[in-house]
Each structure stands twice: as structure tokens, then as C-alpha cells.
């Protein structure tokens, strides 16, 4: 063996405006092994991988690949050098054939023409080598997710990759397909290819991994051989921080049931979710990204189709078909993705605050009242902006979020749903948003709070509902919710659940 490590990343720091996503982390990968990266959402795994393959440029730190220091400017450079990434969301061109997808951007040529014959024969050879049962002429879009993934892996191999990064590769696979994937991984290992594996599923991690590296809050924790670790140890390494942030949680009177959800389902996104929400209560929704939490609240809010179950408010069955219905029933949803479905960036603060409540201003619109409302929430939420007329896109993330909080408070909801309310906003604004939420609960409003941040969920919630892959795995009371327990519920496979 020429060298011990195929890849060494040392002291990688990555700063985004206002956030230090990576605080000097390291990663050392041995050739021909499966190296698993573990950590909560936001621990820095994906950011680190993006620095590696040239999507991001690290602020400082050194990357040594195959004995040479590298700094890729693009994924194409990384692929040509021998590092491929199979993304969580695959990005094939569905209308073209499998074969064309494999060779996209580097089609073999004969003169100036594409050599279609060579493309096909090379493709066959490649699939044979990996033991894949794929038809190069099939349209990419007709394949299952598992098969598309196989194509992506074949593509990686065709680049002669020495490292293949797999980000949550099994999240959309059936059990049989997972087995097949693992056989291919073994095949790759035997060719001395190193696999960097990102997953949240404990069982499969211990089945497949040689080494495990744990990150937490952008910091490197440790790297150990998989056989020296147990599930419990990994979980406590992942969440091992003290809950140091202050949360202004005030115990307040929990009132009667206001919202009751029974066996709620929406297609494949989530099934059979049941819970009750009380006045004055903050119900946390915990779980990993993709567990179906956002989909649940979108269904309650009427913007996603309900395929089963019933929702009651104050004992009466609700039939909500649109956001309009939800708002008039006293439900508000502060969405996760501010830019996508929250703010209208071109419009002013005033107009964004009033947007969900324009009925209030009559005909013709009462601009004076709109100004009063705008001013009220600008002051109450201390939104920092030159004037009420400032377009919202010119504000910082935290102030944009406050504008949206103002929008929903103006509708005077009984139930306020907040989805990742503090994502991507600075610490100060974060604390302010927390105290607003707590204050609202104190006023007898019922709150559902989705959060991927463990301290936030544990600090703010009266109870925590935990989801795993579209299924509700448990509801914990404030006093019994430890981060270890929540993480366990959030990563448990359905069969584990049956064992309990």
C-alpha cells in the first residue's frame, strides 16, 4: 500500500456570512473502506462534502487527495480527478436514455460526430463489470429510484473514481434494493474504491461501515473503527453537547384540547399521524430532514392534499382545502422556506405584513390602517428597517422572519404552526423569536413547532412528537425527553419499534 489515506482533509473552516458552518474539522479516509459520516442536521457533513467536490470553497484548511494537495473549482474537476458524489436528490435527465446519461458531457466522438456505438458497448461493459442489470437504451425517467442510483454509481465508476460519496443513498430504497446496493458497495471496495457514506440509519451504518467519523455543530468529534462503537455511543457522541443556550421557557397553563388530529395521512409523505394540541401548549415536532414533519403541517394548513384521517378543531371536524380556509379557521403557518413560500421580496414590509389579511382593509383599501398595522408589528417585533416601505428582500433573514411572524399574528390565529422558525437567522433574532413564541403560548394560543435543532425542541416544547420516515414513532413529555431518546426515536427503523 503506497499510502495510508486516500483522502486527508485538515482543519477545514467554512464561513458563510454570519455563520461558521465548519470550525476546523478533519476527515481521513483509507482506500477500499466505507467511511461513514455521522451527525445531526446542520452538523456540517454536507458542507464538508461540498467543500471536497468543489461546490463550496473552504475558507481555510487543506485537502490532500491521493498524495497531492487539491482544490477543486467544480464538481467536474473533482470527478475527473476521481471523486464522485451521488446526491440525495438525483439529477438525471429523465427524457434521455440511460446510456446518454452516463456519458453526458463527455460523449466519445469519432471525428466531430458522437460515437453512439462506442457509447453503448462501453456502457454494457461497465454494467457487466458491476453486475448491474440495466438496459442502456431505457429512458432514464422510466427507472426506479434504486436503478437511477445504480446508473449514478456506474457513472462514478466510469470516471475511475477513487472516492464515491453517497449522501443518504438508501432513503428511497426498499429492503431488497438496499441489499443490492450493499453488494455493489462491496464490489467497489474490492476495487480499492473508498466510499464516504452519509446516513442516519443506525442499523445499516453498522452493517456496512469500516470507520465512523462524528461531527457536531461544525466541529470534529472523533473517528473510530465501527466495531469499537455501539449505537448508543454514536448517539451520545452526536448530541453530546450541553444544552447551554437559554430558552425563555415559561411554564404556562395548559388548557383544553383545541386541535385533534386522527390518523392523518398524505400519500407517501406520511401516514397515520395522531395527536392532540392544547391551548397554551407548545408541541415540538422532531425528526430528521425528510421525516414528513413539514408535510404534516402543510396538510393541516390545507396546501397539501389529505389522503386520510380527520382533523378536529374545538371538537368540530374541519374540512380545509386551501390556505384561505385554514386562515379563516384560525390556523397560521410560518413556513420553513422563507424565500420559497414566505416573503414576497419585491413588496414592502407593510404589504408583506398585511398579505394574509387583506380583507381587513376593505374596499377601497384603507392605507392608513395598513400603515398602523405595519408600524405596530415593526415596533412590537423590533423589525430593523429604514421604513415601512422598504422591500422585504433588502432585510436580513431574521428581520424577514419577523415580518412573517407579524403577518401571522395579524390574522390572530388560535393555532400557530412554525416550521424551523429560527433556521438561518442570527443568535439575537433567534432569542427574540423564541420569546415571542413563548409569549404567544402564554396568551393561550396553541403552537406547533417543527425544529431540527435539538436544544430548541427540548428547550421550548411541552411535548415532543417524533417522526421517522413518514411515521410517528412517539410522543414524549417534556420531563422524559432527552436528546438521546429523541435521536433514538428519530432514527429507529420500523422493526425496532415493534421490538419495543
Amino acid at each position, binding site marked *: 500500500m503506497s499510502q495510508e489515506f486516500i483522502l486527508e482533509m485538515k482543519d477545514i473552516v467554512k464561513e458563510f456570512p454570519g455563520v461558521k458552518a465548519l470550525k476546523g474539522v478533519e476527515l481521513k479516509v483509507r482506500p477500499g473502506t466505507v467511511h461513514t459520516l455521522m451527525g445531526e442536521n446542520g452538523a456540517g457533513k454536507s458542507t464538508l462534502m461540498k467543500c471536497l467536490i468543489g461546490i463550496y470553497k473552504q475558507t481555510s484548511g487543506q485537502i490532500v487527495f491521493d498524495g497531492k494537495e487539491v482544490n477543486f473549482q467544480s464538481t467536474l474537476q473533482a470527478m475527473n480527478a476521481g471523486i464522485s458524489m451521488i446526491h440525495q436528490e438525483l439529477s438525471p435527465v429523465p427524457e434521455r436514455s440511460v446510456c446518454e446519461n452516463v456519458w453526458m458531457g463527455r460523449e466519445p466522438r469519432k471525428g466531430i460526430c458522437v460515437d453512439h456505438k462506442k457509447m453503448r458497448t462501453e456502457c454494457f461493459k461497465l454494467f457487466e463489470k458491476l453486475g448491474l442489470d440495466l438496459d442502456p437504451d431505457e429512458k432514464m425517467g422510466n427507472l426506479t429510484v434504486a436503478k437511477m442510483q445504480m446508473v449514478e454509481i456506474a457513472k462514478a465508476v466510469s470516471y475511475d473514481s477513487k472516492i464515491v460519496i453517497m449522501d443518504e443513498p438508501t432513503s428511497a430504497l426498499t429492503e431488497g434494493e438496499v441489499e443490492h446496493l450493499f453488494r455493489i458497495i462491496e464490489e467497489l471496495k474490492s476495487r480499492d474504491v473508498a466510499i464516504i457514506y452519509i446516513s442516519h440509519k443506525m442499523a445499516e451504518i453498522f452493517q456496512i461501515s469500516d470507520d465512523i467519523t462524528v461531527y457536531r455543530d461544525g466541529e470534529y468529534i472523533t473517528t473510530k473503527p465501527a466495531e469499537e462503537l455501539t449505537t448508543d455511543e454514536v448517539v451520545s457522541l452526536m448530541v453530546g453537547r450541553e444544552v447551554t443556550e437559554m430558552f425563555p421557557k415559561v411554564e404556562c397553563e395548559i388548557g383544553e384540547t383545541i386541535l385533534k388530529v386522527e390518523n392523518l395521512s398524505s400519500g407517501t409523505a406520511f401516514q397515520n399521524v395522531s395527536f392532540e394540541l392544547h391551548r397554551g401548549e407548545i408541541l415540538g415536532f422532531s425528526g430528521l430532514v425528510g421525516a414528513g414533519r413539514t408535510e404534516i403541517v402543510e396538510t393541516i394548513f390545507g396546501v397539501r392534499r389529505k389522503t386520510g384521517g380527520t382533523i378536529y378543531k374545538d371538537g368540530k371536524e374541519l374540512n380545509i382545502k386551501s390556505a384561505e380556509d385554514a386562515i*379563516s379557521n384560525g390556523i397560521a403557518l410560518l413556513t420553513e422556506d422563507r424565500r420559497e413560500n414566505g416573503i414576497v421580496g419585491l413588496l414592502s414590509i407593510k404589504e408583506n405584513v*398585511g*398579505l394574509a389579511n387583506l380583507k381587513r382593509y376593505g374596499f377601497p383599501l384603507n392605507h392608513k390602517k395598513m400603515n398602523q398595522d405595519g408600524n405596530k408589528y415593526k415596533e412590537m417585533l423590533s423589525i430593523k428597517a429604514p421604513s415601512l416601505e422598504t422591500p422585504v428582500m433588502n432585510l436580513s433573514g431574521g428581520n424577514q422572519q419577523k415580518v412573517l411572524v407579524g403577518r401571522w399574528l395579524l390574522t390572530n390565529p388560535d393555532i400557530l404552526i412554525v416550521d424551523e422558525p429560527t433556521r438561518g437567522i442570527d443568535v439575537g433574532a433567534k432569542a427574540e423569536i423564541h420569546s415571542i413564541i413563548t409569549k404567544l403560548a402564554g396568551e393561550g394560543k396553541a403552537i406547533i413547532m417543527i425544529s431540527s435543532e435539538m436544544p430548541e425542541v427540548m428547550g421550548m416544547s411541552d411535548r415532543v412528537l417524533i417522526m421517522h420516515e413518514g411515521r410517528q414513532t412517539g410522543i414524549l413529555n417534556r420531563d422524559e425527553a432527552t436528546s438521546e431518546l429523541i435521536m433514538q426515536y428519530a432514527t429507529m427503523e420500523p422493526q425496532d419499534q415493534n421490538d419495543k
Partner: protein
Amino acid sequence: MKSKSFDTKKFLSQNGIWGVLIVMVILLTIVRPVFISRMNLQTLLESESIKGILAFGIMWAILSKGIDLGPGSVVALVSAVVASLVQQTGVTGRLLGENGLHLSAPLAMLVGLLIGAVVGLITGVIIAYTQIPPFIATLGTQLICRALAKMYTDRPVSNLEDSFRWIAKGKIGPVPMIVVVFIIMYILTAFLLTQTRFGKNVYAIGGNSQAARFAGINVEKNLVMVYIICSVCAALGGILLAARTGSADPSSNGLMYETDAIAAATVGGTSHSGGICRVSGVLCGILILGVINNGLVLLGVDDNMTNVVRGAIIVGAVILDMRKNVKKA
């Protein structure tokens, strides 16, 4: 102090276009003094009023991040139908028979506006509920309405009642009726845009339709309304055109009018990325295009060259618009 200088900048970026108009007017007046004569200015306003009203309609479609290519053909269809309803009776060659159906002027206009509303309703429903690109849906409207107009009559419809022609040819004081109607439409559009929920809804839909939906706005219903308004404006344009010229030719009426209307709205600062528009800007855009058309005629520039200039102005306006918005983002 700081906020004041900020306002000046904003004022300039929003109203700088009026400066362009003023400079053009001054230059033309120097080169061709006849430009500023009352006669010429009246002709200019009269000839731009119809396309201007179309522009007020198309502005809504563009604001909602869509487009409408149908208005020119709606002008043809509505002008032909309405004209046939108000042809003088007893003349030979009357489309609906020498003593056939004849409506009073207001009723005939109502029929015309109704046709516009139905066309807009169908187009709007298709766009909002099937989510096909507005460009395609309204291209269909364009072809179909023009064909319907030609199927309705294969020859120009003339000899229209004077009571009908009054809507364009009449005068209130020194102001021609057609200009009065244009001004009323301007006020109505400004009111809808700034003083009603509907206006705010369309701004929000154009700016971020997902956010609008999550804020409880019925995106589909509002989009349908947008295309109805756009088509009704075009129908009004058709009525005015028939009244002004005293006849309606289904194959040439309103031809390419949508291009001019889109150009006016665009030059006037309506962003094709949606969510940005000011009625005063659109008014200025209409006037600028009018001055260019009029000026090039006065300068004796030939017709093809005029179109080259107009084409260049549209593209230039969009380039400026894109740059302005990139800077903001």
C-alpha cells in the same frame, strides 16, 4: 438626511423615464416645430389611446408573471361583431341583412365587452388550472379569435351609426371622447392596482406565487380575473377602433396591437419577472412609443425603419429592467 438622498434615488429610478419622454419631446420640437402643434398632439393622443388601453390590460398579465398575446385578435373579433350590430339599417350590403338585427350603441358595446370577458375567462381558466405557459395559451387565443373574426365576416363592416361613433369621435369640451375613455381607463387601472385587494393579490402572485398561496390568496381565481381584465380592455379597444374608423376589417384590425401594448408596458417599467409595475410608468411608456411613432413619421423615416427602432427599444428596455432588478437582488 440619509433617508432623503435614498428617496431621491428611488424617485429617479422610478420616474427617470419621464425625463426620457421630455427630452424626446424637446428634441422633436426643435427639429420639427410642427410636432408641438395642437393638431399633431391631438392626433398623437387619439392614435395611441386604443393601444394604450390594451397596454393597461396587458400590464396585468405581465405583472402576474404571464403574458397575453390575444388582445390584437380580440380587437378584431369585437370590432367586427359590434360594428355589425350598429350598422345603419336600410343600406345594401349590411352584414346581418338589410333590416336585420340592430342594437342601440350602449347595448352593442355591452355585447362587445361581454365577448372580451368570455375570451378572457376561457384563457384565464386554461392558464390558471392547467398551468400551461401563458405564452402558449394566449397564442391559441390569438389565432382562434382572429379566425373567428374572419369567419364572422369576410369583408369590412362599414356604415356605422353616428350614435355609436360618438364614443370615439365625440368631444367633451376640446377633448376627444376617445382620449376621455383612455383617461378613465387610466384612473380605473390605477385604482384597481393600488386601492383594492385584487391589486395587492396580483402584485404578490407575480412576486412569489407560492408565498401568495401560503398567505391564503386564491391564486387561480385571481389569475382568471387578470386575463378577463386584459381581454375586456382589448374588447374596449376594439369598440373604440370601430367607432373611430367607422368600419371594422377583420383581417387588419388590431393586427400586431399586442406587440405595441407589450412594448409600452415594458418600456414603462413593468417587469417580465413579475411583481413590479406602476401605472404611471405604463402611461409614460405609451406616450414614449406614441412620440416615437409620430416623430419618425414627421422625420420622414420609412415604415420598416420605424419598426426597427421599436424593436430595439423593447429589447433595450428589457435589458435595462433586468439589470435594475439584478442590482436589487
